[in-house]
């Protein structure tokens, strides 16, 4: 099982992360994403957008709130 946790410097093999300018992190290949409280969230899409701005109301997922705080 591969996992991506926010703030991790190294990801398990097979997990690819890309930062979108002023937006979320696009994560491919993870089975779960861990939020800031340490709870795991199952990944149900081929790619997920993980909030990087800290303002999403659906963390760990991006809900596009970053667009209104640019």
């Amino acid at each position, binding site marked *: 099982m591969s996992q991506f946790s926010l703030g991790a410097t190294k990801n398990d093999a097979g997990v690819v992360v890309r930062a979108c300018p002023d937006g979320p992190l696009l994560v491919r290949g993870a089975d779960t994403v861990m939020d800031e409280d340490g709870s795991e969230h199952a990944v149900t899409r081929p790619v997920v957008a993980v909030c990087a701005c800290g303002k999403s109301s659906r963390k760990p997922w*991006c*809900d596009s709130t970053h667009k209104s705080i640019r």
Partner: protein
Amino acid sequence: MQLPLERGPISRHVIATLANGEEQASPLALGTGAVVDDADTQLALWTIYELHYRGFDGIPADREWDLGLLTLRRDIEARFERELRDGTRDRLVVVPSDGDIGRQLMDLVAADDSPSPAAFLQRRASREQLLDYLRERSVQQLKESDAQSFVLPRLDGPAKAALAELQYDEYGGGRPERLHATLYADALDAAGLDRTYGAYIDDVSALSLACANAMTMFGLNRRLRGAAMGHLAAFEASSSVPSRKIAAGMERVGFPDAVAAYFHEHVEADAVHEHLASSDICGAMVADDPSLRDDVLFGAASCLLLDALSGGELLERWTSGLEQAS
């Protein structure tokens, strides 16, 4: 689905030739007026296109390739495309002509300041107006993402892989009950509307048909594959925030959870899809073939234009109703 009801001479011609089982549709000249907001022409085009999707009850499947209907379709498409090109020129002149295509697409979307129905749906719309919105959008959402699937075999490499990735999510990630079109049907159902494919075809406006038809026109014409993917990028990039508002509106009037669930899903999904479409798909297409850049931008601007026209029409309908009521 059943054939729709005619809305004028062009749709009458199309529907009659199908209903009467003619060998081939006879030629028909279009009038001179604009087609983008003409219900008759848009319904004719929608009906011809539908032969490529699910067809109509009792109509032989080979009418899909009726040369008379294909000729009429090309005539309508030529007109429709020209009107979209004319109508998007102003939006496109302000986009710098080079640079990162993903950035250009985002700038184009950000520059759109047309009033959106989402805020109205969130705060003010009545139950009946929310139902109206669900009905109007049903002609495109019950075949959600299908037009873009026509583009897959026309792409290769990273762009194809990214579109497949996006479509897999639209198609439920391997879970039929999570197909976005099925989530929309569930939302219709939960709101007390008819979930049947095509159920509201006779009720929706010309511009709702035009929004659906533009996607099909771009999807079915290989020449316009750049526009198809630019349209997708703008569509995805202008969905997540409005979906959050519409979900709140659906909850405000107390519809069952399945209604808002469709929109909640799009808050999250389209926050991903916008990046896939603009960078991974359009970025890869333009890197591979720079001549596609203009059409990618044209497709995106067309999506924004049609959304603005259709959104404006709905807002006008709802707010003039409010004034009458007060």
